[in-house]
């Protein structure tokens, strides 16, 4: 009970922290919207040449674009989020202070990242999606159940994204300069989440493999849930996300245990 209250408070302050920068939020919304338009036009050209490409019709493909722009900041698909700060604390040794606090390291960052994601879903997700729906013909479900499932999928997408970023960030305990790893993490996320192109468009065996990677859970699956393309009325997608979330969070715990017991904090 106490633990829950504590983490809720951390999440709430994460929310408030990002909500403070209103001008930055508006700037982000503007940029997301511009990118949404550019991508939408390229998708129109692509689906004009090949209707039903990747199992979507043109309207579904456009919906995919705007879901992507709405999820970009929420699931920190192109960087952003807690990891830069966490990495900096590992690099300069401040993490030692975090470790002797009576809170769990992973849970603390998880709560604060959830708070950030909640704000960015509202602050940076809604408006681009609305603009997209205004400017293009999107396929949005009318059933509230689908929207509810979509919200669950977005939550799980943030969890999987957090778990992945936490794993990459923990490597900073072993590497002096983890900037390269951070870049690698963003790279994988951009490409394998479906941010550039829906994963169902990827050709051949490669296209099969990318659908099973954890990054698929961060954008492809939520989009499929909203578009009604995920099996079992969306439950198959949620199950896939949940499985990866559990695996990656446990992996994060194990790596964290290894990192904090074996590695001497730099300078110490």
């Amino acid at each position, binding site marked *: 009970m106490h633990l829950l209250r504590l983490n809720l408070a951390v999440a709430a302050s994460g929310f408030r922290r990002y909500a403070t920068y209103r001008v*930055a939020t508006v700037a982000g919304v503007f940029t997301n919207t511009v990118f949404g338009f550019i991508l939408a036009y390229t998708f129109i050209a*692509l689906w004009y040449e090949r209707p039903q490409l990747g199992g979507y019709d043109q309207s579904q493909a456009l919906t995919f674009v705007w879901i992507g722009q709405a999820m970009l900041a929420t699931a920190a698909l192109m960087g952003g989020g807690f990891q830069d700060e966490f990495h900096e604390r590992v690099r300069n040794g401040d993490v030692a202070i975090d470790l002797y606090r009576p809170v769990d390291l992973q849970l603390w960052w998880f709560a604060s990242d959830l708070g950030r994601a909640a704000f960015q879903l509202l602050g940076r997700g809604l408006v681009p999606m609305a603009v997209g729906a205004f400017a293009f013909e999107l396929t949005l479900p009318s059933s509230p159940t689908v929207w509810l499932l979509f919200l669950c999928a977005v939550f799980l997408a943030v969890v999987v994204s957090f778990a992945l970023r936490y794993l990459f960030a923990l490597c900073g305990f072993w590497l002096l300069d983890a900037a390269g790893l951070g870049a690698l993490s963003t790279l994988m996320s951009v490409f394998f989440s479906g941010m*550039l192109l829906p994963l169902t468009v990827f050709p051949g065996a490669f296209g099969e493999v990318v659908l099973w990677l954890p990054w698929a859970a961060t954008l492809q699956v939520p989009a499929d849930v909203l578009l009604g393309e995920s099996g079992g009325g969306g439950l198959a997608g949620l199950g896939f996300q949940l499985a990866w979330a559990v695996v990656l969070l446990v992996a994060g715990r194990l790596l964290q245990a290894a990192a904090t017991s074996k590695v001497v904090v730099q300078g110490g």
Partner: protein
Amino acid sequence: MAETGAVERGAPGRRLSARRALGRVAWGLRAYGFIAAMWVRSTMAYRASFAMMLVANFATTFLDFAAIMIMFSQVDALGGFALPEVAFLYGTSCVAFGLSDLLLGEAERIGRRVRDGTMDILLMRPVPVLSQIAADRFALRRLGRIIQGSLVLGWSLTRLQLDWTAGEVLLTVSMVLSGGLIFGCLFVLGGAFQFWAQDASEVQNAFTYGGTTLLQYPPTVFGKELVRGATFVVPLAFVNWLPALRVLGHDDPLGLPGWVDFAAPAVALLCCAGTALVWRAGLRSYRSTGS
């Protein structure tokens, strides 16, 4: 000409003679070189890290092209353009943007400097502020984008099999150089904008990164309004669309007169003049943090 003693005596800080203005520009460039060289030396102290970041920069920008290649694994043409033609647009856009990103990309950090007050230090040094800002943290790893764009451009040139005339070669070279200038202006304008709106640094990403992404695709893909906006409001079309359409032998969707294809250098210079004015206005309106 206007080089009179009266001007120099009257208002030394405000109006400069042509010779002194040129001297100032030369000093600005030299100072830029000094600062950039210092950052290169410091980067080279960590060679392995530098190599990793160069590869990461290369790979990140390569992903955009990977997406285009995946698109073309499914279709033969996009907006009436084949893969080598899109690669030509991609390469020119990427190299032009890469040049400006390498030389002026740091201007997007002005907002942070205004917030934390380190802008003041730059004002106290006897070096033009723009030189200091642009050369600050000069990142050689950004060569990755230029290398990647050049490779794609080279590949497209071997595939296009155009009958090159001297004029078209010149047009392609000027495309990359004036394109770099136009993108450079966007970086500096974005930086100047942050003197007024410190937190809004992300707005400029829509024009810089958004611009280079836009120009990687043929203009026929986009709505006419978007193409008009990218021609007359933000002159991105001069970076590569207009000249490239002539080189590739495609019609321009807006039906502009033919001479416009050669106007890129003039447009770039015009942008520079406008940018200089905005930059000065931005710098003058700077108030130190806390005031």
